[in-house]
């Protein structure tokens, strides 16, 4: 008899580069989430090659991505997009040799029909992308709030999304 907990659980993916200052904030969020007791979701630090997201999230009913963004908003500002909005984010440069940017990857996944049934992206406005493993205080300060919102998202009680300007992710 199949166990019910064998069903795919929601997946939270933190993205970013550890050694690029605030860019690593998505990683800090998923590390903080790991300390949540009995979180009914799997939590991972994302692949450096974003094209692997397609396989990573395959079969998941809900996927939550967390990444640093730059939109000109005050550092530490948290924005939330659902899947439909996320695939319309501006893509910046089309492609780099290292692979695809997150907006590019989401566009591509949409064209390939490989977006998860529910996708939520949390963006945390960053200040500093230079070398270093320290985060700016106001960016680090957003972590507890994002964690709370992710927990509510997983529980099916998302905080009401606040419309924000489109950041240049």
């Amino acid at each position, binding site marked *: 008899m199949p166990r019910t907990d064998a069903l795919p659980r929601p997946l939270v993916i933190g993205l970013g580069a550890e050694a690029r200052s605030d860019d690593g904030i998505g990683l800090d969020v998923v590390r903080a989430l790991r300390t949540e007791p009995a979180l009914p979701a799997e939590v991972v630090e994302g*692949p*450096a*090659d974003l*094209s*692997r997201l*397609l*396989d990573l999230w395959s079969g998941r009913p809900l996927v939550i991505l967390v990444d640093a963004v730059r939109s000109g908003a005050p550092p530490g500002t948290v924005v939330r997009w659902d899947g439909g909005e996320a695939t319309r984010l501006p*893509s910046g*440069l*089309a*492609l*780099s*040799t*290292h*692979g*695809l940017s997150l907006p*590019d990857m989401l*566009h*591509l996944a949409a*064209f*390939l*029909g490989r977006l998860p049934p529910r996708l939520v992206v949390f963006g945390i406005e960053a200040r500093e992308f230079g070398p270093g493993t320290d985060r700016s205080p106001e960016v680090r300060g957003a972590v507890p709030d994002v964690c709370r919102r992710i927990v509510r998202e997983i529980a099916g009680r998302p905080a009401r999304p606040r419309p924000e300007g489109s950041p240049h992710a």
Partner: protein
Amino acid sequence: MTDRTIAVDYLARVEGEGSLRLRLEGGKAKEVELRIFEPPRFFEALLRGRSYLEAPDITARICGICPVAYQMSACHALERALGLRVVGPLRDLRRLLYCGEWIESHALHIYLLHAPDFLGYPDAIRMAKDHRATVETGLALKQAGNAILELLGGREIHPINVRVGGFYRVPPREELETLLPTLEAALGAAERTVRFASGLPFPRVEEAYEFVALRHPEEYPMNEGELVSSEGLVLPQERFEEAFEEVQVPYSHALQARRRGGGAYLVGPLARFALNHDRLPPKTRRVVEEIGLEPVVRNPYRSIVVRAVEVMLACEEAIRLIRGYAPPERPHVDPPGELAGASGAAVTEAPRGILFHRYEIGNDGLIRAARIVPPTSQNQARIEEDLRHLVDARPDRTDRELTDACERAIRNHDPCISCATHFLRLEVERA
């Protein structure tokens, strides 16, 4: 008589920064300047004073798409300095790791960067809308290459398991065998890729390249072999500097390599294939014969076919190496305990062509001097010649058409700056 200057200040979809400036006088390309801002120069200074053991990991940071090439050239150069020989399973594992890099790097270029040019799309994302299966094949191939890097290198980008003398850890046989199903599928996908690429529509162009590559007595070259050229050069690889020099050009931070006493030359898939087409493994050779690919391809647009052939041979080789693998007793060969000051150089075949490293080490094991000549700086002058011919053949094109055509011509060579589809800014001067 119309004089035109086309300046493209920033190449997008590039590794690092590059720009292009064209000046036309009387319908002829007067000046063609491909400008690349290259990080390796700084790395050479950065390496001084560091332990020689750090060189593979430091130089791997030069490129996110071909870090294995930097690790391999660094290891071979330092091992030559130390008199170390890496043979047997350790040698096989290195070749396997290189196969992984060729697969992921070439698959990315073929499907996500180059194919849109032939199928008429501005980028792979919009191409995916109409060519879903094609893009899926590319992503699957790339991931097969990444899987090798991750298992053997410790992670998929900037692997951390390579060291002078071998590896920090070597996998047991059963662990390596977990890659086989993925690679068998990749081999099939690679064969389809060769057939797909050979069926694309190609502009009719022939360039008189001097090809330069490694050549090995038994295998398609990756880690080892002599330096050879289509003009008859044969030279031990560690003597690279006797045949090639780097010159400064006033418009670029990057140095451009040339044959000493000669001109521009081409490295990379077209060169490797032209000089090693008799070294293909059997399945790949059969497919190459079936599609009727000529042994020397001088049409740069058809590099996409040769790159696909190299993906297939890398898959075939990877499978062979895994099937024949018996773990070594130790993960690496030990360097000598007492270091006498030494120097060593080596060339390996990065996905984009030969990559030269030379190191001088002091008695204290610290690097005194380092020199790195990446494939892109070697191809830069030859790419400019391609562009010159392109402009001269059809000077009636509009600035927009000319810019698009130049971008395509640059992408043919997948330079580390080339992953560009668009030039962001275009300035036109008309006299």
